């Protein structure tokens, strides 16, 4: 009795009932004790608790579509336990391993050379296509998106932004306006300076030069070299000219003429005007000349730094901060050299007992012990 597992009990009972109908042949079936069969033996045992004889309804697994059958998106292709079949192209797999179509197309059951031990179900987008698509050929793709033909609906959809963009839109537009205003103010200041620096330019040439210099300014601020920025400005201007011709606003001849004028203007402006460290316009100065000026400033500061008193102190500060030729790194170097918060060791050292002296402790690496340093007011000129 023990060798019959619960799963097979039901079938065994059915076959036995069939046997009883044809009269028991001399088959030696073991004495079985079933509830379901109405066989009354001489002595009927007490009915025990029902631990077997139960089964769930069939899960209707297996294929739901045939080969080459047209399917819609999301249509279920195969129900299974575990992955007897794997999802192929344009097919997905659910949590209970159900395979469904991702695109409308025609079902294909196929093998993939990259996974020899697996069977795939995929959806080919066109009837004549076979799966798997060759490995190195471009993917077959369906556009699917439909054009909105109704004008009103299309306009509405175009302005229908995601909530985040919709909420951000006003602030962005305000920022754009601010930037525009700022550009105009810089343009006006540049055109005034250009008028002073390059007086022989006429009205619209000055405006064009101002725009060019503003364009170069934005690039230098972001770290591009000056020569590169100038080239980008010219190149972008020529591109715009080309597009005007493309849009039919100017003729080809005018464009070439404008192009020549612009390149001449560019040459002139680049040779007359250059930028200082605040991106203001100054008369042209080459890099060598600038470095030479910085060196002069350095030597002048050194002489002032030699004897520090009230007057020279302010002069040093003004020299460093008002100079418009030195860039940020050079200024930092000059500050660390001449605007020291504490003067080097010998000046201003006093005994710790001094009343007004400022005491500081530090670790001495040579003697490897803590030492006390007392300094009087002279050691802190720029306090």
């Amino acid at each position, binding site marked *: 009795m023990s060798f019959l597992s619960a799963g097979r009990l039901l079938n065994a009972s059915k076959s036995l009932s069939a046997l009883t109908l044809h009269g028991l042949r001399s088959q030696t079936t073991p004495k079985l004790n079933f509830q379901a069969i109405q066989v009354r033996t001489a002595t009927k045992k007490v009915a025990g608790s029902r631990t077997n004889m139960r089964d769930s309804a069939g899960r209707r697994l297996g294929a739901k579509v045939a080969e080459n059958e047209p399917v819609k998106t999301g249509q279920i292709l195969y129900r299974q336990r575990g992955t007897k079949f794997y999802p192929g192209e344009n097919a997905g797999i659910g949590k209970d391993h159900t395979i469904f179509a991702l695109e409308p*197309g025609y079902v294909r059951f196929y093998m993939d050379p990259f996974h020899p031990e697996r069977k795939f179900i995929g959806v080919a*987008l*066109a009837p004549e296509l076979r799966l798997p698509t060759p490995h190195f050929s471009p993917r*077959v793709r*369906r*556009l*699917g998106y439909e*054009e909105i033909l109704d004008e009103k609906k299309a306009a509405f959809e175009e302005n229908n932004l995601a909530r985040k963009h919709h909420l951000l839109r006003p602030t962005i537009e305000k920022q754009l306006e601010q930037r525009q205003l700022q550009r105009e103010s810089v343009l006006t200041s540049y055109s005034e300076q250009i008028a002073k620096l390059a007086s022989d330019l006429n009205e619209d040439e000055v405006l064009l030069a101002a725009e060019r210099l503003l364009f170069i300014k934005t690039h230098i601020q972001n*770290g591009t070299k000056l020569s590169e920025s100038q080239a980008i400005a010219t190149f972008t201007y020529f591109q715009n000219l080309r597009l005007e011709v493309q849009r039919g606003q100017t003729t080809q001849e005018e464009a070439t003429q404008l192009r020549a004028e612009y390149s001449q203007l560019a040459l002139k402006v680049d040779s007359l005007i250059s930028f200082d460290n605040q991106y203001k316009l100054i008369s042209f100065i080459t890099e060598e000349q600038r470095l030479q000026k910085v060196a002069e400033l350095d030597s002048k500061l050194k002489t002032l730094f030699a004897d520090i008193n009230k007057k020279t102190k302010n002069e040093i500060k003004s020299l460093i901060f008002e100079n418009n030729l030195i860039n940020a790194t050079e200024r930092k170097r000059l500050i660390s050299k001449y605007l020291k918060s504490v003067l080097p060791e010998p000046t201003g050292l006093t005994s710790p007992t001094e009343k007004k002296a400022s005491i500081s402790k530090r670790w001495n690496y040579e003697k490897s012990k803590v030492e006390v340093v007392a300094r009087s007011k002279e050691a802190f000129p720029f306090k």
Partner: protein
Amino acid sequence: MLRSNIISQCRRLLSTGTTKTWASKTTAPSLKASTHYRDALLDGIPSTGPPSLRSRKYKQRYSSPEGINEAFDVAYDFLKSKSEAAYAKAAEAKDPQEKAQLETQAELHNPEVNFNFAYNEKLENDTQYIDYELPVYRELKKKHWENYGQMLTMQRLETLAAIPDTLPTLEPKAEISLKFQNHTGVNRWVEAGKKLSSNATTFPPSVKIQEFDALDLTKGKYTILIVNPDVPDIENNTYKTQIAWGLSNLSITYNDNFINPAKLLKDEGKYNEIISYLPPVPEKNLPAQRFVTWVFRQGEQSLDIQLQKRDFDIRQFVEDFKLEAIGAHIWRSEWDLNVREVRELYGLPQGTVFAKVKGTRRLR
């Protein structure tokens, strides 16, 4: 060896500048470290501390490991003798590949070359410190590229399906870096696969082609094709490929290889523009469009073709002109409010608006 150690030690005390020089045959400046670091690099860290540390506090605290100076002197002489042998062989070598390989081997262990390469800008290289005309710097840069840049680009090309959608595959031989230098003033290299706004991509990009193999760059020419494989083809309910920009007959060198406005203006007539630049103008509600920049070696042939139609089959084009793909780059574009201005700027018709939900129409 012992005698030279004693000399270098007392020289370190006198600090009169190092006398060590490598066996370099050429006097290229980039084979020497800058004087600021050279003495510390070759003769050991002075008592004032390593020059590469900025603040005096850390300079004071720093102590280099024991015995490194003596060991370095011995190692320097040993490697220098090896380098001389390699240079001698390189002198006789005839085949340029082998010659470059021997010169690389000779300079590969030069501490100054390694210092220059490790602590200077590699992409926008200053030939004073990193000069890619020298085969050793190309070798160091190639290893550096294969360690990160190459893998990243190939991963993005694969996951965004640029291969096989445009070309079937790619064996990367050159490093392609891309940057948009236009009215926005932005100065940042574009990472492969990045989504760019339509304002940023209004004007053509600047492409930098860094070759590593030992080639004669004076003869070989280069072609750049930027293709967009995601242009909607509404009649056939699929996507088609269009060419956004094409340049050919570009000549570069190992250092001057940045095809940017400056270079395009400088040799105006020398190169050929296959087709003018069409900026990304994606439609609303469509998935992001991919713009794949392919770079090819033309060999000696000159490619003077001018295309009119935007529809483009890149595989056919490459086959016809026997172009050898050496590198690629990819960026993506999505619809945004500024696309309307870009269309007006280029005189293009207004974009079609698509429904948000994908329809159910079959492909065929």
